[in-house]
């Protein structure tokens, strides 16, 4: 036997936790700790069959309410509301629980979960939501039992039945939910985003490169974006984001490209990508090097193939890009060489000297690039993200003292040397690498793979890609086992974003449009009508025969007894469930006609002989009588 009271109490705890957990990271300490404490105290008190009572709880609720509401402002609406919801839920968990209180707990939990969606709408939200829906349906059913009788007990079997019926309801409503998801109106702009404030977060990808600013770079393994495309060779995975073409003091920044410059992506096989970036404040649209075209988001393309988008707020977007996997970008306009040869404010002397040597070489840009490569190689530099050279002479330290650094050091040192040597050069920021999910068919690119490389201008070739980090010793960005595991976890989030979060009015309309087109385009194949009718008739006939064979009683006796049982069941519905015999039924019904039928029928059947013709007739008559009486 199972106490329904205990079942409801457990369900309520789970439901309240589902309301609380998604909000947990965003709560203030009071609310964050008050809830678990209240939960434990509430359970303990319930065990001892005590409760604090309204005299304590009501003033407590009012106090907490006033405390939170006093801090209310337009910026803190969400925070105050969610804290308040959690605190009120905690108070409810503390107190005595009647049916009404349980309903309050359920309602508050639902609101808490809704509030959590203001902070974060990840795939986990779906899990919480589904769990909550299931549990709420079950709890409401079970609660009706408890409301009827407070101490009601059910056997395990009964409980199992109740639970399975209760579970059936939300499960049955799932298809409806899916249907409504596609149909319900929605706005292309998130309703609540104005409440959230700027959602800028740390990214590995920056629009300023200043080697020597920090001694170590730790970027979280946050997802930067996902790109759906075919699997590509590892060495072509350069995701172009930004071009840093000039100096502001000592730092590389992006300046407006000179007038009259224009570039042409070389012809070649283009790779189509569908890119789902995580919301960030940068506004640069990333695509595989070299992007040719980008659609899906309103964007501006600059002559150095940098795309900037106008992404509203924190809205999740997706766009499609076509790229040519090429290492050189043709320049079709005039190139302002002086713009790309500008130097920083200060240059370390040793580096300057090295640049002078390079400039003195008479050969062309390609020869100078080769010279820089051999210089880097001869320095035996290694790649690291820790213990980076810092300070004003960071590049000097990088090349001559510590001889290690990250891509920023490699790229800026290389570009500076090239500029000193008279080769126009610029930095390209973006990402390098990515883990391919074979299951999802997309690349997962995380913030820690942010990368900077160099483009140098070679006459006749255009802008040539150079990745000086490749010249280091031990520059490998291999994928670990953790990355593999992460990938599987990521898959769910990817599909959630793809199917739910970026699903908007536009997609809805296109869905309707394609559906309409399909319907309009549908034409019935021309088949002679007579043949169709014949086929239908034949099929109907086969179905009818099949049912007739299944339904047809094997013998006249069987037909009789079926009729008899039907009459009996109509008079006394209980008989059916009792697996009654013919005599037993006729005895219970006290109908002389049925009694006589049983006697005739039983005498034949239980003596293992078929009914004779006159007996059959008599039986049919008797049944007819019985039917008429009913």
């Amino acid at each position, binding site marked *: 036997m199972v106490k329904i009271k205990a079942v409801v109490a457990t369900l309520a705890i789970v439901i309240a936790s589902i309301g609380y957990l998604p909000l947990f990271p965003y709560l203030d300490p009071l609310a964050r700790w008050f809830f678990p404490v209240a939960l434990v105290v509430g359970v303990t008190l319930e065990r001892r069959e005590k409760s604090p009572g309204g005299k304590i709880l009501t003033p407590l609720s009012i106090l907490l309410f006033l405390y939170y509401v006093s801090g209310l402002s337009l910026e803190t609406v969400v925070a105050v509301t969610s804290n308040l919801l959690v605190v009120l839920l905690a108070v409810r968990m503390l107190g005595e629980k009647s049916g009404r209180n349980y309903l309050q707990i359920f309602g508050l939990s639902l609101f808490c979960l809704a509030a959590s969606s203001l902070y974060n709408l990840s795939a986990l939200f779906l899990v919480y939501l589904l769990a909550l829906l299931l549990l709420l349906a079950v709890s409401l059913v079970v609660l009706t039992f408890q409301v009827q009788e407070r101490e009601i007990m059910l056997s395990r079997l009964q409980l199992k039945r109740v639970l399975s019926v209760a579970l059936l309801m939300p499960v049955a409503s799932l298809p409806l939910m899916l249907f409504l998801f596609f149909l319900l109106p929605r706005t292309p702009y998130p309703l609540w985003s104005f409440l959230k404030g700027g959602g800028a977060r740390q990214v590995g990808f920056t629009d300023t490169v200043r080697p020597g600013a920090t001694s170590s770079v730790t970027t979280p393994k946050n997802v930067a974006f996902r790109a759906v495309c075919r699997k590509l060779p590892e060495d072509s995975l350069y995701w172009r984001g930004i071009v840093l073409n000039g100096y502001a003091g000592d730092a590389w920044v992006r300046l407006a490209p000179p007038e009259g410059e224009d570039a042409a992506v070389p012809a070649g096989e283009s790779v189509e990508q569908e890119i789902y970036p995580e919301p960030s404040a940068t506004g640069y649209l990333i695509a595989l090097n070299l992007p040719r075209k980008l659609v899906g988001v309103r964007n501006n393309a600059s002559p150095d193939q940098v795309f900037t988008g106008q992404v509203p707020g924190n809205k999740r977007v997706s766009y499609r890009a076509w790229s040519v996997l090429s290492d050189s970008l043709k320049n079709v306009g005039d190139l302002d060489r002086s713009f790309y040869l500008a130097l920083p404010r200060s240059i370390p002397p040793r580096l300057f000297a090295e640049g002078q040597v390079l400039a003195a070489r008479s050969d062309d840009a390609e020869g100078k690039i080769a010279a820089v490569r051999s210089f880097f190689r001869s320095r035996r530099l290694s790649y690291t993200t820790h213990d980076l050279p810092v300070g004003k002479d960071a590049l000097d330290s990088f090349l001559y003292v510590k001889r290690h650094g990250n891509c920023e050091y490699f790229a800026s040192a290389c570009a500076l040397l090239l500029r000193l040597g008279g080769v126009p050069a610029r930095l390209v920021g973006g990402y390098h690498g990515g883990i391919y999910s074979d299951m999802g068919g997309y690349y997962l690119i995380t913030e820690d793979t942010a990368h900077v490389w160099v483009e140098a201008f070679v006459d006749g070739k255009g802008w040539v890609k150079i990745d000086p980090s490749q010249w280091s010793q031990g520059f490998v960005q291999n994928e670990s086992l953790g990355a593999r595991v992460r990938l599987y976890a990521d898959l769910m989030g990817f599909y959630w974003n793809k199917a739910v979060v970026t699903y908007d009015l536009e997609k809805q309309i296109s869905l309707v449009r394609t559906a309409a087109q399909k319907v309009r385009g549908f034409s019935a194949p021309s088949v002679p009508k007579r043949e169709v009718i014949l086929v239908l008739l034949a099929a109907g006939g086969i179905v009818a025969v099949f049912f007739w064979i299944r339904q047809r009683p094997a*013998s006249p*006796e*069987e037909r009789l*007894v079926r009729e008899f*049982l039907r009459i009996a069941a109509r008079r006394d519905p209980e008989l059916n469930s*009792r*697996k*009654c*015999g*013919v*005599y*037993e039924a006729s*005895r219970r019904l006290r109908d002389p006609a049925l009694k006589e039928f049983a006697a005739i029928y*039983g*005498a034949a*059947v*239980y*003596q*293992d002989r078929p009914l004779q013709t006159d007996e059959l007739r008599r039986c049919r008559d008797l049944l007819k009588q019985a039917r008429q009486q009913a």
Partner: protein
Amino acid sequence: MSLAKRDEMIAVLDELSGRRLRGKGRAVRLCLMALLTGGHILLEDLPGLGKTTMALAFAGSMGLSFGRVQCTSDLLPSDITGLSIYDRNAGRFTFIKGPVFNNIVLIDEINRAMPKTQSALLEAMEERRVTVEGVTYPLPQPFLVLATQNPIEQVGTFPLPEAQMDRFILKTGIGYPPEETEKNILMHGSIREEIQHLTPTVTHDDLIEAMRAVHGIYVGEKVIDYVYAIARATREHPMVLAGISTRGAIGLVDAAKAAAYLDGRSFVIPEDVKDVAAVVCSHRLMLKPEQEAIRKEELLNAIVKEIPLPVT
């Protein structure tokens, strides 16, 4: 419908249950069924509910001889079967027949007798003859043992093992009579005196003929299937250690035949089997040790209820 001597048997039943043994109709009917099938019956009930009275009345109105044994722990086998005594006048041993040499033998509180005596008695029940000192004496026909036992008092008893229980075709209780009937009995007092002077309404030959008729009742395949389904269900039930034996299933068929005979039918219907299943089978079930507290009748009824009656 020609069932030999059925009317006479029904008349006896009506006489007994309607006039003499009011409120014991069911028990009397079951006794008659046991007698007609040639089996024996075990009455399990409290003392003072009229077991002996019923047995006496039954024997009296059937015109059968009646013997009675009151079991105690020092009862010897020879107290039941009889023994040879030296006859000084004749100068030889003569066999004095014990109470078992009667058509109807009432064994009161059978569980008070020691196992040795019980087994001697049960052997006589099964074999229908008694062997004393090398001489075999056949028991009279018909032969019915009515054994009683008290279900409550367990001190100083030797409860019948299940194997011995199997030899009784039926086991039943009598139960308290309905309120009106009991008040009536209280008003008129015991009928023991009356019973002494009962005139038999059937003859010995009638009874033998009726037994033969019962034996000839037709049992169809469907009914046999049904009996087998019940036996099998008891054997496969998770609470049951040992289900109904083949002897038990035979008893079920026999009892159903007797029921059909008394109902005026020359063939058995599944309802007959269902009606007698509890009294025939429940005492034969051996439950698992952890299920001892369950009442066997209820378990058996539950099992039977789950098996659909064959209707076609």
